[in-house]
Each structure stands twice: as structure tokens, then as C-alpha cells.
């Protein structure tokens, strides 16, 4: 009940901002073409639907591959950390360092290595969601209660059974948190990776900027935002479907 009220009030807030923005445009700002009115942006989305859609497809492919690969790598590293604590002590700072490299600096480097194509943006997308997954999965794989692990020990479960039946399910809420963060991050990463390329949403943003196509720039930005938001909402949905048992997920309703 409370959740529904929150939802309604955030929709009202968004609608209010858009309406005020539109009114302001009509009244005073019509002579500033660098900030188009919401109605103009909406019209531009339809006008440029074909180029946006064509470039979006590429970005979507890169984001999805990047999200899957980056998250799998994150889980793999977390599993290593949990299984071999010494690995965590020696590698953790390295991971932090890699995470601290700005993605905009990585992107041109990857472009030089791999050339123009989907490889570089996909890797940037993967890097963007790797870190949240590695951190959250490490915490998640340690989230199983001592009691549950005692129980598995008394039942003479082997390490694999304890992992599959207790550690892994207990980590799912943490994995979902990482995916909620990772989905928009992957879209952002792919976009950054396309910035200097020849296709994709990132390229479209860059080219509309240099060609001073302000409305196309805004339309592309709105679409990219919507896509990132949908990615986030997909995992919110998964969370509600699969981990209703988790107090955190229940609390969000």
C-alpha cells in the first residue's frame, strides 16, 4: 500500500516537472533552442525514430553482452575471494585500482586495440557492471547465516551441496542489487565505448552534438535514459518474483 503511494507520487513529480518545463518553454525560453520543450523532444523522437532505433539495437546488444559477461566475471571473482581468502587480500586493491580508471580513458584505448566495432563498447559495458557485481557477490556469498551452515554441516553436506543449497540462494538478493546497479551502468558503459566509434547511441549523441542537431541530441538522451531505466526495472521485477523471501525485497512492496 505504502509502495503504491510512493510510486504514484514519483509519477506525479515527474509529470509536474515536465509540465512546468513545457510551460516555461512556451512563456520565456522559446528563443533558447539549446533547451527544447518536452513536446519538441517528443516530436524529435518520432521524427528520428529510424536512426535512433538502428543505433539503439547495437547499443542494446553491447549492453546485454557486457552485462552478462561482466556479471559472470564478477561472480567468478567473488567465488574465488570467498573460497580463497588470501586471493581477496592480494587482489582486492588491484580490483579497486582497475575500477578507479575512468571509463572514458579506457574507451579510446580499447578502440585502438580492437578497432571500431562492437568489441570495445561491449568491454566498457562489461567493466561498468563488473565491479558492483564483484563487491555484492562477495558479500552475498558470505551472507549465509552461521546457523544454516551449521545445519548443512550436521547433515554432512559436502562443500558443493552447501554452496548450491545455502550460499548461492542466500546471495541472490545481493546479486539482484548488483544487477539493478549493473543494468543502467552497462548502457552507460556501452554508450561511452561508442563515443568515438561509428555507430550506436553514443555515436549518435556525439555526432548530433558536433552537427548541432540539438533536438536529436535530446531525443537520443531521453531514449537512452528510458532504456537504462527499463534495465533497472527488469531486475526490480525479478527481485519481486524470485526473492519474496528476502526481508529487503519484501520491504520494497
Amino acid at each position: 500500500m505504502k509502495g503504491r503511494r510512493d510510486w504514484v507520487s514519483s509519477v506525479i513529480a515527474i509529470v509536474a516537472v515536465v509540465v512546468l518545463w513545457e510551460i516555461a518553454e512556451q512563456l520565456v525560453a522559446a528563443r533558447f533552442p539549446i533547451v527544447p520543450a518536452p513536446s519538441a523532444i517528443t516530436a524529435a523522437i518520432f521524427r528520428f525514430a529510424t536512426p535512433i532505433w538502428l543505433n539503439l539495437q547495437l547499443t542494446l546488444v553491447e549492453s546485454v553482452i557486457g552485462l552478462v559477461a561482466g556479471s559472470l566475471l564478477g561472480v567468478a571473482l567473488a567465488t574465488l575471494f570467498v573460497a580463497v581468502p588470501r586471493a581477496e587480500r592480494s587482489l582486492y586493491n588491484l580490483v579497486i585500482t582497475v575500477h578507479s580508471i575512468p571509463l572514458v580513458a579506457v574507451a579510446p584505448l580499447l578502440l585502438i586495440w580492437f578497432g571500431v566495432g562492437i568489441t570495445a563498447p561491449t568491454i566498457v559495458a562489461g567493466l561498468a557492471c563488473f565491479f558492483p557485481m564483484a563487491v555484492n557477490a562477495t558479500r552475498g556469498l558470505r551472507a549465509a547465516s552461521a546457523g544454516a551452515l551449521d545445519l548443512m554441516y550436521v547433515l554432512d553436506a559436502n562443500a558443493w551441496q552447501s554452496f548450491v543449497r545455502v550460499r548461492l540462494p542466500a546471495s541472490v538478493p545481493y546479486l539482484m542489487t548488483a544487477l539493478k546497479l549493473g543494468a543502467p551502468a552497462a548502457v552507460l558503459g556501452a554508450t561511452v565505448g561508442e563515443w568515438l566509434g561509428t555507430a550506436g547511441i553514443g555515436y549518435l549523441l556525439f555526432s548530433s552534438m558536433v552537427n548541432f542537431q540539438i533536438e536529436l541530441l535530446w531525443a537520443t538522451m531521453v531514449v537512452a535514459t528510458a532504456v537504462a531505466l527499463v534495465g533497472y526495472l527488469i531486475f526490480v521485477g525479478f527481485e519481486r518474483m524470485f526473492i519474496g523471501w528476502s526481508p529487503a525485497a519484501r520491504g520494497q512492496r
Partner: protein
Amino acid sequence: MRDREFVALVGPSGCGKSTLLRLVADLDVPTSGVIAVGGEPPATARRHRLFGVVFQDPVLLPWLDVLANVTLPVEVARSETVDHTEPSALLDLVGLGRFAHARTWQLSGGMRQRAAIARALVLRPRILLFDEPFGSLDEITRQRMNVELLRIWSQRPTAALMVTHSIGEAVFLADRVLVMSPQPGRIVAEEAVPLARPRTLETLTSPDFLGCVSRVTKLLLKAVENSTS
């Protein structure tokens, strides 16, 4: 401990009674001395699944429904000797038949502990170990659960060892009460309980029950006194 004997271990907090139970269950390793469970060292007994444990916290896995929690030991043990209807039969026995597919977080504290008892029984252990199983329940629920526990135990008789700090609970449930002293933690006295079975809520007000409670209370007070002086 004899077969089908119910032994309760009472003692003040910190005397090591839970530790003793964890040693028996092979969850802790003794620094010295030997423990035998069913004639075996604890590790062997655990591997042969001779005992079932009911912890203070029911530790039900929240991502499984109630029936799946009770079935968990069968799956982990890959046991083929246990009838596949046994988990539901046990849920009926503990009074949770209607809640087989409920989520564990929808159950009350007493119901969770019932499910934990069913889970401990599912591999037909020879010994049941209880670590303060009703410690977090209110007094009334606790009394009802004790009556229930005796009913369940009479249907599935095993040897049972319960650790508790409630003298009344120990006397009500057990054939034999062991009294443990703190610092050094050791068993200092033993009292046989002369109450006939089945025991009911009326037993709690009988003179035999009250007499036994006062005898155990005196033994416990003496144990605490001797250790602190």
C-alpha cells in the same frame, strides 16, 4: 544414555552446556577427552547421520517452503531408505500438514520450531539433540510445545538430549536430569524423574513434579555455590 531415554541437561548460562551439545554434534572439537555418540566418535556419528539436531534458532531456509525444508536432509543425504512420503507424514505429525507449502517467514516461532523438529526426525536418527529449542518462545507457547514435543517423541521414539536452563522444562520432559556447574563446567549431579508417561499439562501441578523440580533446584543451587566459593 540408553535407547529411547530422554535426558535433559540443566545449568546456568555460561557453564558450557551448549558447548557440550555442539561437541556431541561434532560442531566443535574437544581440546581433550573423548566423546562417544552411539558408540562412535561424533564425526563418524555425523557421517552416519545417527543424530538430528534442533537448534535454538529454527534455521529454516527462507527460499524453500516448509515441506522443502523438511525434505532437505533427505536430499543432502541422497537417502533412498527414506520413504518419499515421510516428510509430509512428519509435517502431519508435528501439526503443520496444512502449511506444507507455506513460506517459512509466514510461520510463528512455535510453528517454525515444529518444522525444525520434523526436519531433525526425517532421516530417522537414533538420537535427537535439542539446544534450548523453545528458548525464544513465550512461557505459554513453550509449555504447549513441550507437551507437543512429548507427543511427537512418543510417535517417533529416539534417545533425546536436551540442553535447557529451565528446570521445569527439564523435569517435565526428561527421564533423567543432569545438573551442570559453571567454572569448571562439569556434570555434578543427576536426578531421575519419577513421573509416569504420558505427561500432560496436569503433570505440571502434580506433587511429584513439584517435588522433583525442587530437588533439581537444590542441586543446581549447590553446584553454583560450590563453583563460586
